């Protein structure tokens, strides 16, 4: 079942502050990076870094590995089938195939039940069942009250084992995927558009580059036969981890494992991801009619969970701007003090908000990670200033570290806040399954243990090793793309005017922010019309 893509009237009433080729494809090695832009002060202190981020494979659990988090007292049962299969498995020219295959399985009915009958079966149970795809992983998640366990289990497994492959359902869901791209992504959600544009920029020529939901040409080319063949090759036992939580007993475990043993044992070989350039200084400006300018910035990093510097860097970026929390440096400096926009956040690994929470989705693990900063839309006249502000405060943290009092507060915050990340069965399963791939058992416990041992000095040392403002790349969504591109190519100081008096110290700091050279190369600024974004 799918959440409505379009906000309903009731949702709008509540306002908060708040590929891959099925065979490995040979990728041309990235072109050697051009000379880097003028480094910021921080860059001068950072050690030399490799020109590319290699594709160091994630760990591979044994086929159909079972992860159980039983709580016999719970009347609810959670299922989480995680396949190491994602949009990287989309064949060239058929971008969107994996996500569409997952959707057709989840929503297209089974051999016994039409899609309408599936809905009729699930509805009185209020059972939850959905599929989600990211770059390397696809999750089929289900949740049901134990009163309905037998019929739900049959349906949940039939979806994968005995899909209906209805041509009508295929066409309906392919049409919807095209609409999600043409309308949802390109026109109706500037924030997501900016983030996807940054992904495309950072991973140009790489299987991560295209929108998980597909490209226009890719989706147009897909057939039901493509989907059937693809599903058989990528939703296989050797790619699967089975998660069960809540009211789970031995019998249920055996039943689920026995049923899923009917999946193909193996299928397509794993995609070999190419190394990714670490070059910075590129910018893409997506042009579309819009009231404001959205900004995303980031770069590809070899740093990922399990690396010694991951926890301290993750901590530092939480200090800079934990997703949708009010205490971060960026939030306070750009929104609270300057009123620039609705929020500003920073991330040590790829972040996708888990629906209904402010926490990162689980099972969006990636072999090659990105560090990013998200500036929510600002009025166009302040676009450059806000961008410079984000880089300024990132750079300041890299140069100066975190003051002792703020260090203590941020550490205390995460020691408590991380406990909220594991409050549901689905999220606990998600973390446990991610840990298999990253090789990080008890990830959140390990994070809290690491937090307890961190010092401002140890964090600063890791930050200086890993955070590189000069490596940033930029994605903008704005109406006057030519004007913004001109400002990027021919930079001049940014000024800002306020509707209310500001402290002299802030105005003085604004001069430094406005004069900050952005690490953007004039020859690496591109304009892309939104209507052509992810065309092919």
């Amino acid at each position, binding site marked *: 079942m799918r959440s*409505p*893509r*379009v*906000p309903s*009237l*009731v949702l*709008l009433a*509540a*306002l*908060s*502050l*708040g590929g891959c080729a099925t065979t490995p494809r040979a990728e041309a090695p990235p072109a050697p990076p051009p000379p880097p832009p003028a480094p910021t002060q921080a860059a001068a202190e950072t050690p030399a870094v490799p020109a590319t981020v290699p594709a160091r494979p994630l760990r591979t659990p044994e086929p159909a590995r079972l992860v159980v988090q039983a709580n016999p*007292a719970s*009347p*609810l049962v959670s299922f989480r089938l995680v396949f190491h299969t994602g949009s990287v498995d989309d064949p060239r020219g058929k971008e969107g195939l994996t996500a569409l295959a997952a959707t057709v399985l989840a929503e297209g009915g089974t051999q016994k039940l039409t899609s309408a009958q599936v*809905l009729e079966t699930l*509805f*009185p149970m209020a*059972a939850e069942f959905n599929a989600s795809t990211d770059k390397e992983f696809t999750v089929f998640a289900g949740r049901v009250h*134990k*009163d309905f366990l037998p019929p739900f289990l049959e349906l949940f497994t039939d979806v994968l084992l005995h899909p209906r492959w209805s041509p009508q359902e295929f*066409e309906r869901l392919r*049409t*919807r995927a095209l*609409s999600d791209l043409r*309308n949802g992504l390109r*026109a*109706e*959600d*500037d*924030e997501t558009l900016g983030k996807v544009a940054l992904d495309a920029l950072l991973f140009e020529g790489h299987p991560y580059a295209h929108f998980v939901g597909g490209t226009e040409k890719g989706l147009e080319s897909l057939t039901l036969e493509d989907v059937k063949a693809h599903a058989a090759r990528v939703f296989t036992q050797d790619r699967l981890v089975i998660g069960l939580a809540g009211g789970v007993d031995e019998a249920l475990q055996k039943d689920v494992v026995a049923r899923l043993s009917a999946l193909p044992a193996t299928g397509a070989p794993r995609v070999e991801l190419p190394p990714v350039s670490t070059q910075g200084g590129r910018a893409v400006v997506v042009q579309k*009619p*819009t009231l*404001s300018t*959205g900004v995303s910035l980031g770069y590809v990093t070899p740093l990922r969970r399990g690396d010694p510097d991951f926890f301290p860097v993750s901590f530092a970026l939480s200090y800079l701007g934990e997703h949708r*929390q*009010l*205490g971060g440096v960026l939030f306070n400096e750009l929104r*609270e003090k300057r*009123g*620039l*926009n*609705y929020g500003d956040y920073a991330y040590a690994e790829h972040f996708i908000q888990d629906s209904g929470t*402010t926490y990162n989705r689980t099972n969006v693990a990636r072999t090659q990670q990105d560090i990013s900063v998200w500036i*929510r*839309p600002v*009025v166009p006249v302040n676009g450059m200033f806000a961008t410079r502000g984000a880089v300024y405060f990132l750079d300041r943290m890299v140069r100066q570290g975190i003051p002792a009092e703020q260090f203590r*507060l941020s550490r*205390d*915050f995460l*020691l*408590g*806040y991380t*406990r*909220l990340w594991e*409050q*549901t069965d689905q999220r606990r399963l998600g973390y446990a399954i991610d840990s298999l791939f990253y090789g990080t058992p008890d990830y959140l416990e390990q994070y809290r243990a690491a937090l307890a041992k961190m010092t401002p000095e140890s964090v600063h040392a890791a930050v200086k090793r890993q955070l590189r403002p000069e490596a940033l790349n930029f994605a903008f969504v704005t109406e006057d793309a030519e004007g913004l591109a001109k400002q990027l190519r021919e930079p001049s100081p940014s000024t800002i005017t306020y*509707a*209310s008096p*500001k402290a002299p110290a802030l105005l003085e700091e604004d001069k430094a922010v406005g004069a900050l050279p952005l690490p953007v190369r004039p020859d690496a600024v591109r304009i892309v019309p939104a209507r052509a974004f992810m065309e092919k």
Partner: protein
Amino acid sequence: MRHRFIPLLLLLMGVALPVAAAEPAAASFFPYPMQVDRLPNGLTVIRVPFNSPGLIAYQTVVRVGSRNEVEPGRTGFAHFFEHMMFKGTKNHPEGEREKVIATYGFDDNAFTTDDITVYYSYGPTAGLGKLVEIEADRFRHLEYSEPSFQTEALAVLGEYHKNAASPGLKVAEEVARTAFTKHPYGHTTLGYYDDIKAMPKAYDYSRTFFERWYTPDNVLLVIVGDFDDAALMASVREHYGPWDRQSGSVTVPTEPSQTQERSVHVDWPQSTQPRLVYAWHTPAAKLDTANAAIQEVLGSYLVGPTSPLYKSLVLDKQQAQELTPDASLHRDPSLFSVEALLSDEASLAPVRAAFNAAVKELVTGKVDAARVESIKSNTRYGLLMGMETAKDVALQVSWYAGIYGAPDALGRHLQKVSEVKPSDLVTFARRHLTAANRTVLTLTPAPAGGQK
């Protein structure tokens, strides 16, 4: 810290009945023990022990929303004011509260609706004592400067901008603006764009707004999770007890009856799926009537995933991509609506005809009783599925208690849902789902032109 929760299984077993089972007693619709006290100053304090070791959810519900924005030019003010509640007091100047929140790691924020404003903190029980202190302090002694007020107005403008790319905001604005001529439900919670841009000039009004609505008799505290009740209440009495303001009153205009169908069309300047909305004026949510419960069932009955309309329009003919009901609770008479996200403009006429036919069938008395039972089961199990965490429970309690103004409103509302009969849908539809009482919105992408 004493753990005074009741095992989840025992609590849920009370309502873990199969669909065909007999109706349970009303009290079991909310399956947790609830304690309620009302302080002499009128503050209502609702506590629900819940199995969340070491964690609590703390919510403050203020019964104020865009419904209360009766003065011209003040649309969106309740939401804007929600932002100001994070700006500090004499005891805890701006930024100090965030330090307390950070010390414990609370997930801390707020939201505003047409009728209520909810402030929430979710995190360690260890911080509960301090939380009571700082929350009471800001609700009693909020202070902020005019420059701070003016700066925050820009953040709110940014919030409007981030939502403006979606046609959904425009649809909500135009349906409200067309359906209401007097009542403040005629604007969305965000407010009119021009009013938002003018907010920096409303500093003095903001003080009036605070004094008028942020009063103990207009507020409910909802605390769910792992806590010592006696210690909590002692702290609440100490810190909230001296709060002695009385809520003000304004006359919320009554919306006159609609006597003729209204329509509005939006030419959307970008590529999008066309939309069709039918919205009817319907009665307020009151615990002495079944109107809200009937609307909740009716929304699913007409366009839910098991409705004939969904099967026909979305699955078979594929003339719509989504069908969405809106039967949300409101303190005053509001709207019941159904919305279709259309496949293309050519689908507009047949979907409209299908909407009309579905309503006509209902008013002629033809009701599928089995589907009504299925919807009631969905509502009941949906509540259980939706109460996995202390925050989930607190949010449910806050929402219903805030709208209805009664601490036990959630259970009582669900009891009413369980009592909805097929004939209730017919009676309701005959009375309210009439053409004269209807507002119709169409939206089409401008390049293709629009149908009026």
